[in-house]
């Protein structure tokens, strides 16, 4: 049997080679940074509400609309013009939906929508709402304008919804999508595709 050399002779640069075998640290491989805001959710330049097509439904008050005004204009100027949205909005039981909207400069604003019968009101609800939606102002704008799917900001972690899920689906998905002209795929039993678990009108 041949003479066994010393470890240093076999691997003169052992410590350096060993270091190279290590993976980079977890902190270098994993980032906790949030992805950048999509373009539709970023703050908009002054006067954006006067631009087409927003000018079709937002009243120009000489300043950026408040959350209440935005929702009000949306219902009056946009949803009311969609027969499908009206039909869907009148199907579920009465729903009270409270919006807590955070504007980057104006702070938090409250507004609420009452579905079936339809109404838009300003301020915090005195009755317990079915659902509370905490949303950024420009996310709300993007959703109301139909630039983002209604649940998109929620699943990307920028919106919080507390309360009755089905009420959120009724308003956020069905009414908003119908208003923004989404059409049912061929063969769909409902005007806007609904999960089988909660058919349209389900409490």
């Amino acid at each position, binding site marked *: 049997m041949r003479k066994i050399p010393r470890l240093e002779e076999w691997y003169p640069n052992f410590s350096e080679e060993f270091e190279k075998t290590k993976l980079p640290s977890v902190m270098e491989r994993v980032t906790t940074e949030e992805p950048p805001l999509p373009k539709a959710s970023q703050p908009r330049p002054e006067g954006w509400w006067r631009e087409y097509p927003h000018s079709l439904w937002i009243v120009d008050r000489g300043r950026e609309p408040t959350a209440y005004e935005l929702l009000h204009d949306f219902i009056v100027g946009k949803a009311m013009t969609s027969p499908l949205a009206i039909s869907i909005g009148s199907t579920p039981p009465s729903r009270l939906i409270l919006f807590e909207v955070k504007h980057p400069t104006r702070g938090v604003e409250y507004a609420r929508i009452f579905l079936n019968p339809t109404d838009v009101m300003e301020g915090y609800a005195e009755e317990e709402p079915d659902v509370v939606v905490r949303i950024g102002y420009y996310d709300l704008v993007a959703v109301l304008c139909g630039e983002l799917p209604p649940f998109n900001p929620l699943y*990307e972690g920028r919106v919080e919804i507390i309360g009755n899920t089905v009420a959120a689906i009724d308003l956020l998905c069905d009414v908003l999508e119908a208003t923004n002209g989404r059409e049912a795929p061929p063969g769909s039993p409902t005007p806007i595709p609904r*999960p089988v678990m909660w058919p349209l009108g389900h409490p």
Partner: protein
Amino acid sequence: MSSPPERKGEKAFQERGQIEAREREYVRELYAVSARFLPLERERVLYASLKNTFGADPFALQDSQMYKRGGYRQSKRKQEFARLGRQVAVERGLPAYNRAVGLPIGQRQLEPILIAGTNIMVEQDDTHHLNNVAIQQMLDDIKRTVIVNLDIAHRMLTVRAGKEVTPETINLYLETLQHTMCGGAVAQEHMSEINPLLVKDAYAKVITGSDEVKDALDRRFLIDIDQLFHPTRAEKLKEAIGDAIWIVLRIPTLAVRMADGDEAARWAAMQNTMAFIASYGLSGEHIISDLAYSFKHARVVRMGNKMWYQRMRGTNEPGGFPDGYICDFMQAERDLPARRFLEVAQEDEEEAKKYLRAMNEGTGGIAAVIDNSIWLGFYMSGGIGFSNTVASAALAGNIIESFSDELVELIHRYTMGVRKVPPKWETVKFMVNTIIQYTMESYEKFPTLAEFHWGGAHRVSVIGSIAAATAGILTGSSTMGLMAAHYSIAHVMKEGWLRTGWAGQEIQDHIGLPYLCSFRPEEGNLVELRGLNYPMQSFSAAHGAIRAAAVYAAMIGRGSSWCLSPVVKVAFADPHLVFDFKHPRLCIAKAGIRQFMPAGERDPVLPPH
């Protein structure tokens, strides 16, 4: 509350009292409204499945056949047991199984179980781990597995013994190893050898990530990653395993049945050393003792750790299986592309359902059985058969499938354009509330479902697994998945029903929540590294399956190919295994109708019988 700015028409809104009165005006009789939707519920898979199980209307609030079902005689299996119990009593002169003592069972329906994913209907007793040989074989196949890295041994041979290691020598060693694993002698005369029919399930096979090494090896001894996994999965697994050569050693089933799981590493190390001695012509104590030492301790992957003193188990026993390994035993996703689930769900709903079904196959057929039947129902509490029924809740009736299909539909419908779901609690909470609200509503709408899942642990098993899967599969984080599961049980179930366990008992998931993110020793860990014996949470049945759902769903969510160890994942893809880890529920169903042949039988050395 912000103060509204002054504007035109302010007066109209000053009549606030009148407007707010309208909110109170509408009393919402939601239960009455929900009754309108019962006809739609009849179209659900769940309805058909429960109707099939009970042979009655799943919405019925009363069982008109109560006390009229003929007691235990309604079950053919129990009739058989009563007859065999009498036979045993006569033969041995001692009373045995006797239906005349104890509670008169069978006043309610003894529901048969349709094993999900199959068309096989079995009785509850057929899923007991002592009656079901597939469950036994699943455990045996895990316990008899040890994985050893050969690079250290090869380095030792070249450096210490001056031997040359070539493809030819490795193939000779592998052929010799099959002989020694079956108890054949190679280095000494006068050794007792073993009847080959007793150990026909013992063998060893190689895993490598290198195409070059693979091409040089005898294909019979190879677990071929390229053949067994979808190319996208194979690519990731091969990259992770690299050029290393691992050998998967499977000792005979009979050996782990006679000793315990700790026998596996000892048998494997001994027979592996003997194969090296024979194929490389080794002698001399120092090299052999170093080889034996390395095969026992250096880069040896055992399937389970030792447990603390009170549990008194060696390695490779179920309480020590890390949850990540349990999920790597599961193989049902092997043919599916390794893609992020969110992308798949956004593109194609039907394709996404396949991923969830793969998860149900694994968590229902493997994790739930290991946790409920084997660990809690057998190792911990002796075998009374309660927690088997929790496992069969996960196995049975396409119930979880029904819920998970709805989950996919929900994700497909509402995540369009979502780039990445962040592991944030506010986001996850909404998703969990959504799906658990639906699951709990289903229990309320279907009284037969509540009858079928009669214990708290049964319902916890379903609700916790669905919650864990929801959060895990969307965020790719097993910690988020487990947080969702604990939250759904400790908060959503508690708030909705006030009781979480059976008969008003409480399942202690609120203990799991605060310790979830802890990494202090003996207090917390990554979910992948926890195990069935993890203390800082509820010890109720079902929690192993819930953790497995979190870990496996997170893997699917990230588009990974393994949860904790690529070599463990590949080792259980081996087609030579007796139990099929890709189709566990089919194996268990076949065993229920006596069509599954296990290993480890002693017939070759028994008198004719």
